[in-house]
């Protein structure tokens, strides 16, 4: 047993192509929190509670391309595609930096 870790953050700058297909990285599981009903990402030694936008995006990381996810969300919520595209990219980039999703 050992404890008490601290990390040195690193910055990864990446471009996300429209046809890239995001999926959860190996070892990452999405699960509904039985206490709150929120969708969570579970991974080794950590838990990430997803905000509403991220929940909807991650739920669609099932083999679809980035742009397909944005179009589906824009139709589903009847919102502006330009805004949704930006939100989807920001969320995916954030999750990729945390190594929770990867692109095919």
């Amino acid at each position: 047993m050992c404890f008490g870790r601290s990390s040195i953050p690193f910055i990864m700058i990446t471009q996300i192509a429209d046809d890239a297909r995001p999926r959860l990285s190996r070892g990452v599981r999405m699960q509904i929190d039985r206490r709150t009903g929120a969708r969570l990402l579970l991974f080794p030694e950590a838990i990430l509670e997803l905000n509403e936008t991220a929940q909807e995006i991650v739920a669609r990381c099932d083999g679809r391309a980035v742009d397909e996810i944005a179009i589906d969300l824009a139709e589903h919520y009847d919102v502006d595609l330009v805004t949704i595209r930006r939100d989807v990219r920001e969320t995916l980039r954030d999750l990729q930096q945390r190594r929770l999703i990867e692109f095919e």
Partner: protein
Amino acid sequence: MIPPRPYALLAELTYKCPLHCPYCSNPTQIRVDVDLTTGEWHRVIREVAALGVLQIGFSGGEPLLRRDLAELIAAARSAGLYTNLITSGVGLNRNRTRELHAAGLDSVQLSFQADEVDLADAIAGTRVHDLKTEAARWIHEAEIPLSLNFVIHRANIDRLAQIIALGESLGSSRIELANTQFYGWGFLNRVQLLPTRHQVEHAREIAMAAQARLAGKIEIYYVLPDYYELSPKPCLNGWGSRYLTVNPIGDVLPCPTAASAIPEMRFENVRRRSLEWIWRESESFNAFRGTEWMPEPCRSCPQRDIDFGGCRCQAALVTGKAHNADPVCKFSSHRPKIDHVIASLNSERTEWIPRSGPAMLA
């Protein structure tokens, strides 16, 4: 105050271990009792899941010594928990790795003592290094996410570059380079284990360079020994706030080292009380919740909600009182005790006491 929900359980399935690492944080003595049965662990898992726990770490000792490990992993998965195995790898073979994977094991943290066999086996006190490299291969083959944990101390810190190279070759996505923290056997051996300031700084540079080089491929974590920090670590994110530990005989601990570091504290047992009652009501879990319990210098310190006064166990071990500020803190009147350990590093004490099974207290 209303206690928050717990997020993670450390399930210490046994204190038995085939290794004798001098930095082990397990207790050096423990009261005599029978280990929890399979059925009792099933109940613990159900109860913590109902409390809100989302992650379980199967640990020890060496958890592979329990023949019911796969069954308990399956129970944890069906209760919705993310399952981690924290192991030396001893007791694994290809079939058992597959069996654990089939049971739903989500990830493995495998410990190594060093990069090369003679040093590693000298630290472990037994010949296990080659077995561990095989274990890493089996875990990799079974496609279970693998994280490697190297405990770093004076006897291996100068080989950090080689240690990282071994980690890279084993197919891991995450390498922890964790300087020893001083609890249990590690506390007894701290003068033999603590690296010098120069060694720690040099190692940090090597770790940071590896981190930059491997970014996006392997995550590298470097954990400083807190004796060289001037502010304490935010231990457990606050006592009784996120974590609980159940030890092999069923005592429920706010921190795995609390039972040995704070001997005057009374801990509850899963054989007599529900996990929910213990988490919410027990004296031990409420002892250091929040900030009301704090004496000075913590009470009026602006950092108190950030570091929670540091580690209760370290305060107890070094100052004799668990509610004191963590003695690594520059505001602690006991900081000279830490500096004294650092100053005594060049003493003649180089032989450590190897870990053995805990002595039994009647």
